[in-house]
């Protein structure tokens, strides 16, 4: 379990994290979203015990990161941003070092080692110096290091940054596989990731929490949520027909491909009504789709709305 209370960090005059409070339970994967410089890494560094908070407090599994740092660090697996590791060591030596420092008992050692190496597919590079590995493999070594002691709490700072689509998929699968009994925080600015791995998302910008909800709830805040898109042979007629539907709030036509999107009034559903009116008027449609919410649009609205407010 991870719990923060009004957690804050200043660097000189700059307030990087401004009173963040949340609680994550075992089994939850919390996605930490926010534009660059939002304070995601700083928050994670404080929870992992690297930086001391300048205000507020953080606890992992009941241990306060400031007053019981060793106990807290024991239950945490942490992947720092950029996955730093000792380049001159081989993967085997490096993981051996981590196992030593973490005091993994002799009988568990090879089991934990094999498990981490297996999950991250590191078998082929065990004897290779880390500095000679590709970026993707370096990231995997960082992840192996973080899960080696089977921690209750995992803090992963941009675990998929700079990976190719296949590698991203692997890392997400890994996180999902470990999610059941662990408490996990993942930071990212890749929004598709949120759907793939997170059970909950916190959007932060300028060090403050702007939204705290499930990915589905966030999507429901989108303008596109429950909107209907279609392409018709006769765009003009189709648009005219859609404007007759009572619950349609707005209609937009894409200038490039002529795709029409009808937005519902808040809380209304228009798919069936749209269908009916199209049939009544015998309008030929090539494609008709019910839209889900668009997370990137919600993200932009939330984070930029706040930025504009701040400027005003």
């Amino acid at each position, binding site marked *: 379990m991870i719990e923060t209370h009004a957690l804050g960090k200043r660097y000189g005059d700059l307030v990087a994290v401004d009173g963040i409070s949340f609680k994550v339970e075992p089994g939850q994967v919390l996605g930490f979203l926010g534009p660059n410089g939002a304070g995601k890494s700083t928050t994670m560094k404080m929870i*992992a015990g*690297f930086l001391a908070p300048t205000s507020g407090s953080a606890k992992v599994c009941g241990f306060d990161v400031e007053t019981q740092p060793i*106990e807290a660090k024991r239950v945490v697996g942490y992947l720092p*941003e*950029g996955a730093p590791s000792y380049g001159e*060591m081989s993967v085997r030596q490096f993981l051996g070092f981590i196992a*030593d*420092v*973490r005091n993994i008992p002799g009988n568990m050692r090879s089991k934990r080692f094999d498990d981490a190496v297996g999950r991250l597919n590191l078998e082929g590079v065990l004897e290779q110096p880390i500095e000679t590995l590709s970026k993707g493999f370096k990231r995997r070594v960082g992840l192996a290091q973080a899960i080696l002691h089977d921690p209750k709490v995992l803090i992963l700072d941009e675990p998929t940054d700079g990976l190719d689509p296949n590698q991203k998929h692997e890392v997400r699968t890994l996180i999902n596989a470990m999610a059941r009994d662990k408490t996990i925080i993942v930071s990212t600015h890749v929004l598709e990731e949120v759907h793939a791995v997170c059970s909950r998302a916190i959007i932060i910008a300028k060090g403050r929490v702007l939204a705290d909800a499930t990915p589905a709830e966030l999507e429901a805040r989108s303008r596109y949520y429950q909107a209907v898109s279609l392409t018709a042979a006769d765009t003009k007629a189709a648009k005219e027909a859609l404007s007759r539907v009572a619950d349609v709030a707005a209609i937009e036509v894409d200038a490039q491909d002529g795709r029409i999107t009808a937005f519902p009034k808040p809380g209304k559903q228009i798919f069936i009504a749209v269908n009916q009116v199209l049939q009544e008027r015998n309008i030929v449609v090539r494609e008709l789709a019910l839209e889900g919410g668009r997370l990137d649009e919600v993200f932009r609205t939330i984070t930029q709305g706040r930025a504009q407010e701040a400027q005003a």
Partner: protein
Amino acid sequence: MSAITTVCKRELRSYFATPVAYVFIVIFLVLSSAFTFYLGNFYERGQADLLPFFSFLPWLYLFLVPAVSMRLWSEERKSGTIELLLTLPITMWQAVMGKFLAAWAFIGIALALTFPLWITVNYLGDPDNGVIFASYLGAWLMSGAFLAIGSCISAATRNQVVAFILTVVACFVLVMAGFPLVLDAFRSWAPQALVDAIASLSFLTHFASISKGVIDLRDLLYFVLMIGFWLYASAIVIDLKKAD
């Protein structure tokens, strides 16, 4: 295994992962023998002792020890591994101590490899081996003090070259503290008590008395306290600077 040993082992192993460590040792051995035999008139003196070796050693250390200490913390900060190291379940003190002991052991290995000199004087004459042993001990203690200063300075910067230069300067001042060069700078304005205090900080004064074979507890204590103080300062500096 204790955390200090684990950190120390990893660090020491990393020295030998590249040729740099071997090059360092070779340079150290070549220079120390060159000083001893040519500048120190080893043969011409006609005395069976290692005095020429030990009197040049502080000056050799002045440049070689900062070359070892400069990467201690700068490297960790530059590569970001400091974040990994300090989020493992170890205390700051264990990390500082582990890394320091590795560097100290490394210097110790280089120093121990000068043993042919010791054998040579025993072959040529009949030296006082107790004095030589005391001198080795004193030299190693002194290198520890150099290293601890270097550890603190290396914690303050990511730039190894800057760390090297600042460490050389700091160590130079401490080595020279008992000499007129440094003392005169203070004598004109500082009270005599301060001048005496500075003079008593001199590495050379303490090293010289140990290498005469007089193992005075105060001299040992001086180096031990010096090491302790600078390592403590290292921990504080790391804490202050680790964020940037």
